């Protein structure tokens, strides 16, 4: 199980849970698992999120491995200039 930290707006969508646990070995499994288990997160997941895994930023790479003890934080989708 991977611990996933959610930012405030996502947390409020699922009853102020700031951390959830998801069975996932990759970024793709994580995003899919979140959407399945917490349908209230789906609108934001569809709009796009970024994910910090052990302090580095990831956007779309489904097969990015996530370890059991990885720090995983969902972030609002980042766009630059």
């Amino acid at each position, binding site marked *: 199980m991977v611990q996933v930290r959610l930012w405030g707006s996502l947390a409020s969508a699922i009853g102020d849970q700031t951390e959830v646990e998801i069975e996932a070995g990759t970024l793709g499994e994580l995003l899919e698992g979140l959407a399945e288990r917490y349908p209230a997160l789906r609108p934001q997941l569809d709009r796009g999120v970024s994910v910090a895994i052990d302090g580095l930023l990831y956007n779309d790479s489904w097969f990015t491995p996530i370890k059991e003890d990885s720090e995983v*934080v969902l972030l609002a989708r980042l766009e630059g*200039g």
Partner: protein
Amino acid sequence: MALGSKRDTSKRDFKIVGTRPLRPDGIDKVTGRARYGADMSAPGMLVGLVLRSPHAHARIKSIDTSRAEALTGVHAVVTRADFGDVEDAATADTLDNCMAGAKALYDGHAVAAVAAASDAVAKQALKLIEVEYEPLPHVTDVDEAMAPGAPVLHEGRTDETVPQGMSANVISRCQFGHGDIEAGLAKADRVLKRTYRTEATHQGYIEPHACLASMGPDGQADLWCCTQGHYMVRNTCAAILGLEQGKLRVTASEIGGGFGGKTTVFLEPVALMLSKKAGRPVKMVMTRSEVLRATGPTASSSIDVRIGMTKDGRITAGFAELRYQGGAYPGSPVNMGAMSAFAPYDLENVRTIGWDVVTNRPRQAAYRAPGAPIAAFAVESAIDELAKGFGLDPLEVRLKNAAREGTRASYGPTYRAIGLEATLRTAKDHPHWTAPLGPNQGRGVACGFWFNFGGDTCVSLNITPDGTVTLTEGNPDIGGSRASMSMMAAEELGIPYDKVRTVIADTGSLGQNEVTDGSRVTFAVGLATIEAARAAKREMCRRAAKVWGIDEEAVVWEDGAAKPSGPNAGEFPPMTLEEIAAIASNTGGPIAGHFEVNAEGAGVSFATHMVDTEVDPETGAVRVLRYTVFQDAGKAVHPDYVEGQFQGGAAQGIGWALNEEYIYGEDGTLQNPGFLDYRIPVASDLPMIDTVILEIPNPGHPYGVRGVGETSIVPPLAAVANSVSDASGVRLTDLPLSPPKVLAAIQSR
């Protein structure tokens, strides 16, 4: 593909990376040969011009183009009726921004376009287009737009994060942070509560948007344009026009500045549609007034901050509520403002709330570290005021609270190796910090943070028969990146810098490339370049192994040549890249390396800025006397261009702090759509901008590179404001710090 296994970052001795060779496109750019957006022409080309709304908000009841179409020399007229529906909401907004649908949403919004044989005929044709408008009430201020009863731009765009009962102009709400704000504030010796305001500023690139489009009846099209990302242009235009992406080839011209403002399309879909209807190539070039009225700018904001601090300078809690208007469509960068606001600090209790709001202004476009400078202005001003109030050294206070490796960032993740503390310590030890100040002079500091991005990237590296190298990449060179790529390729191959030529490919020559944004190019394209070079090296080792008749695992690459890996592998003299290239046809054919990746794992970057100003007590005018940038670059590939990014970001930030602002009249029209009244810093406004490059390697890049382009614009708004406060003895919370505002503040002191 395991990038993680190749993180040989900090201990490496570089031969080329870190030196300052001449940029390969330099001669073209000092001789006038380089071709920018407006510099291309085509046989039979027509001139395309846009008709723009004079109203801030109006229903378009009808558009009659018949008189324009009948004018001799007019070959096509386009309105929204020529475009179909687009499914994706953001792309549909882009289309609506390029060509208004049911309503004109801001002064300058495109409502029709013509293609004609000459500029004069096109101008005449615009006058013959009859648009019947029904003017509607408008709103351009963020706080007014949020108020119940404000004129509403769109119904039904609000998302599920917004509480019931708010104006439909409020699109979304976001919240970040951890801990307990009220409990933290209760532990403070002082809680500062302030409201800050910033005005919209434009990216201010000197090159107006321009393109040349050619589209045939078979749906094949070619487009030349100035953009930060021609693959984005291809994909967006294809979606808007219902084309297959592969049928549209986009070539990026040289780009005359972007700063985020050229990460979307404005003219391109219109030019393609005009070309399609006219059956001729169509060139479109914006005027400066069009650029200011209808492209860019960034958000304007109002921000409430509450910060608690103990008298020894520890921040006990930080709270900010940020309201950003991003113009007529959803998508202000408030998310990133809210995430970055307290990012430099190690806080037990921190919360930020962000509101994305629409108003009757042009749709905001990304501007260098979108959202972050605005948020940093508020937070860094408040921290400075608290530190000053306790008589504490503002650098010491920042050091005391600085985020470090292992700190949980205010936006969630735990930082890996970061350079904030290094920038603060270096600033404190720098002679600038202790230099004497004269009367009416002051000194300010501020910190800044940016995430930095990666994204889809393709690079192809070809070895020519004579042993030189062409590197093909897909990101427009906006400030010297060809040089950096050539350097990284040469470094990796072990050959001289001038043996590599880097070219920017059109969309037909490489796969998808993310736009030049998010300070991603040196990081992501650099990473792909290094990996492409490694692929080429592996192939060259294979060729040498074949020639020598030994196992390919027994060959290594060193100093530009293949060598047996050790005495057991066999006794062969090194075979150089040139020698391998010369016999490539005999050993299996041409040699190339390529690499395609969604480059993830960009490393964050921090900066501290220090600035001295002098305030004229009689006029309120502020003069910048001295400026020093301290920033972590991870690894500076070409230090000249790293310094250039630091200096350019500082200068733009100074403009934002002191002069630049979008000024709207009562009628909702932009009052200053020209460089005379929208005043960006000129040479005589600025001092030299000193830079100190720190190198705390990014563990996510083979050479340790971090993006550097955006962080440099984050601190200056606050640094300048803090300096002006120090100089004048009054605290200003509204940008820009224009002379009348500063004078009024001094006089009411």
